[in-house]
């Protein structure tokens, strides 16, 4: 991992004959959330449920400073991959790392990673504000952040209401507020556009763009290819649990092909197809 080393160079405390040395052993130091590079590394990641292989030897990187779209047909293994990244599902083989660490090894996970997952829920009898207060308390985040994120996602006036009375779009906004609570370096979003109206969609797009421009890592799965085409810089495409493409969006659509056409071509072809292999390998390296 090169990125964490870059961070450590600033902590050099020894010099000798004009050369500088990092005389401390930092290998066991906790990485403070604000010193994270925020890169995501998926390395040989595999998940089998009995005889079914949901995710098959997946390898790709997600870089900070750009929005990465995570695409694939239903059942491609997107959600399982994200759940393995977040430590909710144990991989059968391989690793999913954030800043070189497994999720469970992060010292302050809520400050390092914010996640919006499709299967995340809320107690219908609890207010949106109380939901966030619980996450702030558990995550070691100051309570003042609760009002800030409610305001950020446009729920300031609805925070006191029970979530049972929220619309789907409001729940998505609350999920987003929860993800932003710890001001994390890395954002992982599973279908965040679901249920959002056009205004909410535009807000989300602006938010993700801003975060990426500030150097955050943004990984977002989506079905809505037209939305993805407007929002993301890079794409990772899965089908049948295997990687079909990982690289810049511009490279995918360079020959005048639309994202949709490229997506359909990549996800319908078997992964042994030489054409796919040729497209995948150089783009990923």
């Amino acid at each position, binding site marked *: 991992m090169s990125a964490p080393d870059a961070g450590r160079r600033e902590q050099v405390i020894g010099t000798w004959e004009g050369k500088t040395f990092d005389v401390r052993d930092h290998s066991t130091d906790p990485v403070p959330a604000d010193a994270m590079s925020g890169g995501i590394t998926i390395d040989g990641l595999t998940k089998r449920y009995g005889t079914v292989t949901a995710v098959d030897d997946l390898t790709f990187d997600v870089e900070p400073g750009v929005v990465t779209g995570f695409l694939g047909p239903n059942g491609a293994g997107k959600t399982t991959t994200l*759940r393995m990244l977040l430590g*909710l*599902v144990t991989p059968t083989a391989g690793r999913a790392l954030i800043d070189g660490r497994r999720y469970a090894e*992060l010292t302050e996970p809520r400050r390092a990673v914010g996640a919006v997952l499709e299967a995340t829920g809320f107690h219908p*009898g609890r207010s949106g504000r109380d939901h966030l207060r619980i996450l702030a308390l558990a*995550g070691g985040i100051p309570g003042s952040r609760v009002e800030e994120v409610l305001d950020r996602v446009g729920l300031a006036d609805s925070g006191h209401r029970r979530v049972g009375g929220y619309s789907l779009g409001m729940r998505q906004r609350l999920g987003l507020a929860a993800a932003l609570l710890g001001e994390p370096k890395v954002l992982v979003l599973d279908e965040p556009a679901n249920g959002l109206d056009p205004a909410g969609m535009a807000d989300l797009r602006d938010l993700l763009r801003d975060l990426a421009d500030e150097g955050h890592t943004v990984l977002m799965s989506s079905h809505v290819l037209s939305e993805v085409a407007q929002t993301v810089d890079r794409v990772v495409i899965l089908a049948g649990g295997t990687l079909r493409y990982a690289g810049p969006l511009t490279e995918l659509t360079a020959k005048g092909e639309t994202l949709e056409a490229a997506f359909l071509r990549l996800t319908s072809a078997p992964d042994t197809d030489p054409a796919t292999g040729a497209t995948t390998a150089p783009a990923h390296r």
Partner: protein
Amino acid sequence: MHTLIRTEALKLRTVRSPWLLLAASPLLMIAGVSGLVVSTGTDKALDTAAQSGALAHVGVTSILTLVFGILAVAGEYRHKTITDTYLSTPARGRVIGAKLVVHGVLGAVSGVLSSLVGLGVAAAWWADKGVSFEWSDSSMWTTIGGGISWNAAFAAIGVGVGALVRSLVGAVAVALAWVALVEGIVGQLIGDLARWLPFNAGRALGAGTEAMTTADLLPRWGGGAVLAVYTVVFAVLAVTTSVRRDVS
């Protein structure tokens, strides 16, 4: 661990359903004690044995703390908040540990409140009948102590059942069917061994040895020891299975 315990307490404070459930315990006490007095009628005196019988209802309310405990983990699966819980605290064993502590303590608190209500109602009935209530009766106080312990143990066992079954409806159904049906039917099949089953152990500890069952019960200390073993076994199973399982 301190933060986790405060988090679990905040989760409970921000919803109503668990409190509505626990609020049923004092109501059960009022109904149970009054029912006992009314059915006693005039032919039988209200004596110290009747006092213990009345306060034995404290133990029976542990059925409610059992369901209260089940809500801890199975309720989080039901509303899919378990994902956020584990994202905040990837050390799942500590989360379950905090739930066991908070629910066990609140189970005991519920038992104390049930006891106070039961004592008040019983004393009022005794006064109404012109009988002096024997506050220093040690048998009544051990019945109350056993009942409170039974409440706490069943709350913790409930956390374990919920963590093992995960489906809220399934866990509640299994637990209530066990208490109401299985233990009775299986008990008849296995005879003397029935005294080792959890609800009968609770009865031995907190329901007094008379009137409430025909089964042969363990001595009070034996019932307490057996119930403690069940509690530890369920707590350990809750932690180990929660740490291993995928959340999806």
